[in-house]
């Protein structure tokens, strides 16, 4: 708990902590320029000489590894680094330290690069005063979910393909505008030159013939792509049925095995009796099956085991529960096995269809590429053109039409692939999403005092249908931050982050941390206890919470610290009244402020 008043350095201290972890917020993790920051943030807080000598050193655990990172304030890079087992001695060369940090983040945290780690810190673990929300930000949610489930998703690859989708879309719109200009220019030329019949028919070269063929090829390419995507989807649907049926067959097979084992066992016992075999002799005549002597005690034990339906020699209790009639299991099993085989055959056929469609698509794409790459890359802007003839403009319009159609196909194919990939990802993490929803429901309901759920909702993105996870309470979905009050949106965002951190902790096997600046600012008095319960529920799972708070009457700080024993409180509070530079106004109220601080520190 970082405790202080206005201007005493709460935010600076929290920013310093996060700066130590990640070096600030770069464009790789924050699309909004206004929210990016780095070492320059500290310029106005320190004198030039202090800036040169000040260092920020942060130690933290990543799984079982303890990392210590040191950064200066003249640049956001790592100045020195060490970690408990991988790099136990300080590495003070800038490049080597950055490399070592990257290695440890990868080996102990599974992060592909430092940007991924920084994204998780800034968009999930740290809630600054700027209140950058995660709960209604579909893109950030998708990136976080993919990063947390990196065993099932290639987040970086997915994001770079989404960027390509945006570029293709932007290019298509640009071409569409150019096409409009070309059409207008053509109308102007036609108006000037009404003697259309005088224009000689152009002689078509082989290159031109190939270019003319392009629209048909693009149409064919679109058809082949659609066919491939459909076959892929059908294949996955059949694969899901196969999994379900295979599990059912396994269950039935288990029952059939048990029933047949019971039958075999009873036949063996019957025959042992009939043929007067060794086991039977033990049970009836007390003859040891090994040495052949009379052993009454052994016989009594064997009989006791027999009565208890155990093995007469070792007494192992392995009888299965009574199974239903074998013939009934057999007929069900035959039915399911036939269905399974039919599905497996359908899957094979669909696989062939998928491969054929893919080969066809590749072949047509190769033809399209050959034609496309044979055209000049350089495009002269309209304004630079010399006086354009009608033929020039006709060719230009055709060329733009072809390009637009080509881009439309590429766009549709990439969209279908990305949607498919995303839906497959969501299906594969469905079990984990249940855990996430349960944790969210607990935290959010704790805060609101009424049931609140996390509901998947299709996000209305123009280019790609992603799923946003949004709150629902009082029977209404809350699709935007504006559909909640200020306090609701802020604390529902915290609930969402805590649920994600729970999930991450469950998957990684170690507790996590949540860093939040002055959470009480948005809160009215009646919700204070609910918020305290929410934070307490989070730390009960061994997670850490780092909070900053103002010294206020009936503030959040003292209530939250009530969960910490008196003896431990001092060690858990950074009291800025003791180390900060107090203003004259604060000096005037010092005894009152100290009284409030004591309520927190105990």
């Amino acid at each position: 708990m970082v405790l202080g008043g206005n201007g005493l350095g709460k935010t600076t201290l929290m920013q310093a902590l996060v700066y130590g972890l990640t070096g600030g917020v770069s464009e790789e993790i924050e699309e909004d320029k206004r929210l990016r920051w780095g070492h320059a943030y500290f310029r106005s807080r320190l004198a030039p000489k202090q800036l040169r000598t000040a260092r920020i050193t942060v130690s933290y655990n990543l799984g079982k590894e303890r990392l210590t990172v040191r950064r200066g304030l003249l640049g956001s890079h790592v100045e020195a680094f060490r970690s408990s087992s991988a790099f136990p001695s300080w590495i003070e060369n800038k490049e080597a330290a950055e490399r070592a940090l990257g290695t440890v983040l990868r080996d102990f945290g599974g992060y592909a690069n430092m940007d991924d780690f920084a994204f998780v810190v800034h968009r999930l673990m740290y809630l600054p005063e700027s209140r950058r929300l995660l709960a209604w930000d579909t893109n950030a949610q998708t990136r976080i979910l993919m990063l947390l489930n990196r065993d099932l998703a290639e987040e970086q690859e997915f994001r770079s393909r989404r960027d390509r989708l945006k570029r293709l879309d932007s290019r298509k719109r640009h071409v569409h505008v150019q096409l409009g200009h070309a059409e207008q220019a053509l109308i102007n030329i036609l108006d000037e030159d009404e003697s259309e019949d005088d224009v000689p028919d152009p002689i078509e070269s082989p290159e031109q013939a190939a270019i003319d063929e392009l629209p048909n090829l693009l149409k064919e390419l679109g058809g082949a792509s659609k066919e491939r995507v459909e076959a892929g989807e059908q294949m996955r649907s059949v694969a899901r049925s196969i999994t379900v049926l295979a599990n059912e067959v396994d269950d039935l097979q288990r029952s059939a095995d048990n029933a047949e084992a019971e039958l075999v066992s009873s036949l063996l016992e019957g025959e042992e009796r009939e043929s007067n075999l060794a086991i039977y002799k033990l049970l009836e005549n007390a003859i040891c099956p090994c040495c052949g002597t009379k052993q009454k005690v052994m016989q009594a034990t064997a009989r006791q085991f027999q009565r208890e339906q155990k093995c007469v020699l070792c007494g192992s209790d392995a009888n299965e529960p009574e199974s239903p009639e074998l013939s009934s299991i057999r007929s069900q099993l035959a039915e399911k096995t036939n269905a399974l085989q039919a599905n497996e055959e359908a899957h094979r056929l669909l696989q062939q269809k998928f491969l054929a469609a893919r080969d066809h698509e590749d072949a047509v794409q190769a033809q399209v590429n050959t034609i496309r790459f044979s055209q000049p890359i350089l495009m002269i802007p309209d304004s630079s053109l010399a006086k354009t003839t009608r033929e020039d403009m006709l060719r230009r319009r055709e060329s733009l039409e072809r390009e637009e159609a080509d881009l439309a196909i590429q766009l549709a194919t990439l969209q279908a692939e990305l949607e498919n990939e995303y839906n497959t990802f969501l299906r594969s993490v469905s079990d984990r999403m249940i855990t996430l929803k349960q944790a969210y429901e607990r935290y959010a309901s704790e805060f609101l005092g009424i049931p609140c759920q996390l509901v998947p909702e299709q996000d209305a993105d123009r280019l790609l249908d992603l799923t946003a996870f949004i709150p629902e309470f009082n029977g209404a979905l809350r699709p935007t931050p504006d559909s909640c009050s200020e306090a609701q949106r802020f604390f529902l965002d915290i609930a969402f982050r805590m649920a994600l951190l729970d999930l991450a902790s469950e998957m990684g096997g170690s507790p996590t941390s949540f860093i939040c600046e002055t959470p009480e600012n948005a809160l009215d008095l009646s919700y204070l206890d609910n918020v305290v319960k929410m934070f307490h529920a989070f730390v009960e799972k061994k997670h850490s919470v780092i909070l900053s708070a103002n010294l206020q009457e009936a503030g959040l700080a003292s209530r939250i610290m009530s969960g910490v024993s008196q003896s431990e409180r001092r060690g858990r509070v950074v009291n800025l009244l003791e180390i900060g530079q107090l203003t004259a106004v604060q000096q005037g109220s010092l005894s009152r402020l100290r009284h409030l601080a004591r309520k927190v520190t105990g």
Partner: protein
Amino acid sequence: MNSDKTSVLIRMRDVGLALRAVAPYERALSRIQLQKFLYLMDSLAGLYELLPPLEAHYTFRHGPYDPFIQSAVDSLSFRGFARIRSLVRRSNGNIASEYSLTIAGVRWSDGMLAHHALAERNEVAEVVAKQVNRIGWNRLIPLVYAEPTFFNSRPEGYGKKLKPQRSSTNSSAYVLQLIRHALPKQSSLVTRDIIAEYYFDYLEAYANAQRPLSAEDLA
């Protein structure tokens, strides 16, 4: 997962039926031959709408291996249903045991045939014995090594679970399906025996196309 007791009892059933099926050809089966014979029974079971036990073979040093088969034959021997018919000293100095049914074992296996489910399994054992006898008992091991599921899994090392009944991969079930599709439908001549015969011909042809097995494989 079945309990060990169930797994051993299920393999006692299969061992009993296998030893019964090879008896008319005056054959007894060694430990390794039993493993191979039962693997072929499992591979062919799908043709008779039967499935191998839930816990069955894994890839191992000398081909597919199911530890419950050895436990089953040991238990049958101890209880007096199977006998070690002869002891053969191999060229490598090891002693090989060969198993056959005792009179009580024969009566017990007769008893099993009175039950429909077990009688169908007996049909599988008899077809395997008939086909191996036709091709040659010395071809038992090469036939198993040519079985597609094992053939595919062998390079992946020991301990890989073998499921020859799953037709979604290259397996016996797949080959049997192909044979069934290739034969004229609705013909009364297309019996399970015919399909089994083609299947064994396929295995034999495939085995012949491969490099000869090493002495260790054939041990």
